[in-house]
């Protein structure tokens, strides 16, 4: 590219467009090459569709209690049987996908931006700010994530919203760490110096030129974490510290069925199976995304 081209805006836009479409095409090739990732994406898309069309898929009202029909075996009437209050477990699992996916996506939407802001600030300004912010996040990292989430969920009081806040509190430090490391690695690059000498403000540099560089590793990390987030939420529900009855949350449903485990195995095990599948889907997809965004992988 010669200098006249570089200054020509139309040409620059075309070049950028070309580079981007090549990037996405490469990604698609890598995605197609990875059979497991296809499976993972398939599972996630499946659950997203189930969540979206839950009212159409559910055969019964997930909240309706028909006590005369309690603890029925799986049958054509009730695909997954009924629970101790005569509610249709299949419909509850279907609607439960909404609860689980909402928790997972909201935790992602809260904890990643938070970690990103703190990490970029720490990495960009360095010195005292870095020291303070990183010691602060170290403290949170000193707790096992689940324990911290449980502690906050218990303190804030049970409920889906509080579970989301609690899991986010436990999750942001790892993203802050990552964003800081990425920021440190690009902070002194020539291109940042050039932008700065052109008079860009700190805010502009951080938002426009450093944050995008952190995105790919944050996305990889987040996609690998999604499964853990769901497991944590389900664990909270199971312990009675997350979603509360009668919300059709999978962890809570497993817990509800515990006392009927011996004779009515389906009450507890089938909702748990749904957790296993969706987490597996996220883990498979996360591994795949890591491979796709990994520059070493791209070379080949």
């Amino acid at each position: 590219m010669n200098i006249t081209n570089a200054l020509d805006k139309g040409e620059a836009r075309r070049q950028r467009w070309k580079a981007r479409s090549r990037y996405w095409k490469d990604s698609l090739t890598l995605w197609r090459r990875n059979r497991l990732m296809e499976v993972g994406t398939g599972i996630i898309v499946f659950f997203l569709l189930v969540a979206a069309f839950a009212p159409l898929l559910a055969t019964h009202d997930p909240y309706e209690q028909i006590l005369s029909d309690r603890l029925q075996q799986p049958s054509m009437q009730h695909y997954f049987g009924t629970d101790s209050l005569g509610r249709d477990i299949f419909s509850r699992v279907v609607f439960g996908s909404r609860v689980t996916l909402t928790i997972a996506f909201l935790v992602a939407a809260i904890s990643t931006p938070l970690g990103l802001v703190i990490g970029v600030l720490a990495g960009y300004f360095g010195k005292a700010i870095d020291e303070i912010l990183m010691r602060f996040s170290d403290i949170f990292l000193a707790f096992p994530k689940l324990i911290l989430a449980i502690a906050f969920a218990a303190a804030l009081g049970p409920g889906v919203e509080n579970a989301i806040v609690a899991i986010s509190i436990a999750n942001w430090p790892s993203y802050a760490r990552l964003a800081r490391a990425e920021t440190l690695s690009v902070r002194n690059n020539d291109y940042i110096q050039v932008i700065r000498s052109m008079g860009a403000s700190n805010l502009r540099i951080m938002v426009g030129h450093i944050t995008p560089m952190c995105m790919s590793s944050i996305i990889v990390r987040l996609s690998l974490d999604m499964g853990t987030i769901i497991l944590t939420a389900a664990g909270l529900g199971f312990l009675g510290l997350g979603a509360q009855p009668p919300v059709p949350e999978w962890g809570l449903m497993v817990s509800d069925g515990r006392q009927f485990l011996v004779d009515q195995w389906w009450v507890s095990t089938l909702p748990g199976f749904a957790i296993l599948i969706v987490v597996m889907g996220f883990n498979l997809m996360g591994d795949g995304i890591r491979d796709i965004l990994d520059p070493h992988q791209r070379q080949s």
Partner: protein
Amino acid sequence: MARYILRRLVTLIVTLIGIMVVTFFISLVVPLDPLASIAGPQAPQETVDRLRILYGFDQPIYVQFGRYMNRLLHGDLGTSFQTGRPVIEDILQYFPATIELATLALIISIIVGIPLGVLSAVYRNSPIDHFSRVLSLIGVSMPVFWLGLVLLLIFYFKLGWFPEPGRLDIMLIEPQRVTGLLLIDSILALDWEVFWDALKHLALPATVLGLYGLAGIARIVRSSMLDVLSQEYIKTARIKGLSEFLVLTRHALRNALVPAVTVIGLTYGGLLEGSVLTETIFAWPGLGRYLATAFLTLDLNAVVGGTMLVALTFSLANLAVDLTYALLNPKITLAEQ
């Protein structure tokens, strides 16, 4: 090396103070009045007020915080509202059971995880590699509480191969408490019946926890083993005519295990958190179940004390990992100077 250890110890102390602050913060955000639950719903206002003064909740926050830190620094964790005993006593009673469970789980995951990782690296893309990949995937994706229930259903209720949840058969008498670890105490007391029974009780919960740990260990050993096997010195060792077994164990595995050390440390932390759920299912009288109950009943002192102990154990495990790592890989301490 000395400097490195010193620096890590200083960081540990800073972290510990931070842990105390966070746990204090946790007890602050509780919206419900914990006193109301101690006194009971029918308690007259004056009883609640007296309790408030007794527990110091009437003081401003900074005074409460000062008292709290003072208490902790003197090793006083307060009294559990639930059991009415000092939290420290409760913890000392329950913690060994958790240590026993988590350690056995870690041993299981190391004994199975490392050979599995090695085999799947050596026989890459063979059935054993696929098997280990699937097992790892299931290990990290399985909700521990669900796996616990399923195993109980199959092996206790249906097949009857393993004993009921709990730590020991009701009919057996616990050996004299020395370490609090039943396996060790029973050996010391030469009580083989108790030893065998305790082991059988441990088997299911330790397997549940171990599967979780195994996944991470097998994965990291596989990838670092693949890394090492492509190195030149492995080729040299082979050219020298060493047997494949020696090449793998003496030359490859030794270096491949260095990154595994980190994962093993992290796994121990994961086992601690997993114990909250696993112990709840297996009625395991350990710290995890104690914590879960404390969280549910908002037994504040127990929550604070238990959480702090878990965080402390977790931090110490991390420190141990870092030190071992530094010992195995001199580059880290060299970078320090």
